[in-house]
């Protein structure tokens, strides 16, 4: 039932001068997984994510994402994935509807499909009456929800989320994860980073990066057993504590 992996990385490495940001990481992510990608600041998460999404070239090693090679087919990867960045990725000076149209255009949705998806999205977000408001005027939680909705406008089979819930209020933060779980339940794959360790528990599997390497990988249940910890926070503190900043 697993099918071909959505992501398959082998000895993936990236150096910046003498500094090895990502050091021979190997792992697979399968269809329908919610994969948590944890690590301390500077552990190499963002660099690894940028390689996997076709934004920067690896120094060595291989990675296949949605069947495409990260060296030769990075443009195909960018077209196929969804990506939501750490900080707000919408245009604040455009209205909600203008943002949707802009991103729909970038991903090549035709007018009919675009208006249908926009309707669905605005209904689900309960933003129908605000469609002509500037994005700048929306509260942060709503913006983040809209950013996620826009990132999956073209229904990508794989979505990268880089700290999607930073600073979001606790109720919206939980709604947000319910959406992510819904999207995964539809057979899609989500690859997410977070600094909230309670959110790590919702992942089907996760990895913890320490100094450019993967120090632990598995389901929360497996990791609790293997490392003898109560929760992912304890695991994270144990693994990341030795590194310092």
């Amino acid at each position, binding site marked *: 039932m697993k099918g071909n992996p959505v992501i398959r990385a082998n000895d993936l490495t990236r150096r910046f001068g003498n500094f090895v940001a990502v050091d021979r990481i190997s792992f697979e992510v399968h269809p329908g997984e919610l994969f948590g990608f944890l690590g*301390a600041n500077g552990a190499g998460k963002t660099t690894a994510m940028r390689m996997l999404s076709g934004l920067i070239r690896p120094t060595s090693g291989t990675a296949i994402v949605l069947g495409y090679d990260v060296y030769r087919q990075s443009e195909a990867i960018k077209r196929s994935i969804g990506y939501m960045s750490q900080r707000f990725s919408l245009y604040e000076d455009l209205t909600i509807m203008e943002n949707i149209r802009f991103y729909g255009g970038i991903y090549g949705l035709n007018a009919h499909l675009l208006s249908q998806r926009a309707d669905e999205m605005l209904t689900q977000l309960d933003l129908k009456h605000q469609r002509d408001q500037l994005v700048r005027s929306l509260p942060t939680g709503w913006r983040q929800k809209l950013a996620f909705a826009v990132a999956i406008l073209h229904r990508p089979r794989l979505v990268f989320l880089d700290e999607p819930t930073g*600073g979001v209020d606790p*109720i919206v933060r*939980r709604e947000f994860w319910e959406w992510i779980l819904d999207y995964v339940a539809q057979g899609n794959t989500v690859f997410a980073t977070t600094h909230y360790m309670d959110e790590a528990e919702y992942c089907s599997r996760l990895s913890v990066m320490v100094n450019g390497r993967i120090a632990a990988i598995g389901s929360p249940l497996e990791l609790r057993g293997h490392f003898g910890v109560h929760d992912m926070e304890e695991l994270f503190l144990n693994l990341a*504590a030795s590194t310092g*900043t």
Partner: protein
Amino acid sequence: MDSIIARTLSKTYRSGKSETHALRGIDLDIPAGELFGLVGPDGAGKTTLIRILVSLILPDQGTASVGGMDVVRDYGLLRRRIGYVPGRFSLYQDLTVQENLHFFASVFGVNADEQYGSVREIYKYLEPFRNRKAGQLSGGMKQKLALSCALIHHPSVLFLDEPTTGVDAVSRKEFWILLSQLRSQGMTIFVSTPYMDEAARCDRVGLIQEGKMLRIDTPSAIVREFPLTLYALSTDRMSRVKADLSGCAEVRSAFAFGTNYHLTFYTEEGPRTCVHLLQQKGHSSIRLEVIQPGIEDCFMYFMKEA
């Protein structure tokens, strides 16, 4: 003696036709020597409140003072007596660590070498990098440099705007230890954070949402104010819990909390009904037990109530 006082502070931002009510009548009485945490999500008004208290913006209504100095009238004096670490890294990226420290010392009219004692505890981590440009430091080091520069003139009150946002769990823990050390030296500290779990590290916290204070109290008193019995639920099928309980009229609230769900009920029979329903829907290994609420439980409760 109260160090930070605010009375009915309000602030509205206007841009074209749209209005944002950033603060709606904030009152504060923070005694000298307290470690006070302002806890709330983005957009709650945290930065606006801090910027008024450090005299960078003017309130529309209300008054505030820090150490007896009015934030509007006495701003010149006030600025020499407080330290401020803004949310965005605001040091000079192309000056070295040492140059930044000396620059801030001279702005405040003090001698960096003579003042070294007041920052030694933090600056010692930066010594090995003193000739490195600030822009090339790691996130944790940048934060320590910003703190050193804010402390170089030995302020009596320190304001920090979200120093731990986007910072990993380990570095956050270390940073709070630094703040506790400063507090034990008698400094008044006003720190904002979106992380609810950090509230427990403060003497008192203000929970802020949509420009209003939901509560101001010690973390333990806030927890005691939670008026309901809180339960933690776990089963062998956690991903189904929310959907399977959605039809249960006795459930008042259900929020995911990592490995558990936190539940409250309308009636005393609620817990039994809920377990029965979950059994019917095929859950096993069901554990439902009464637990102490945390600040995040309280925040969500007061938020819904407001």
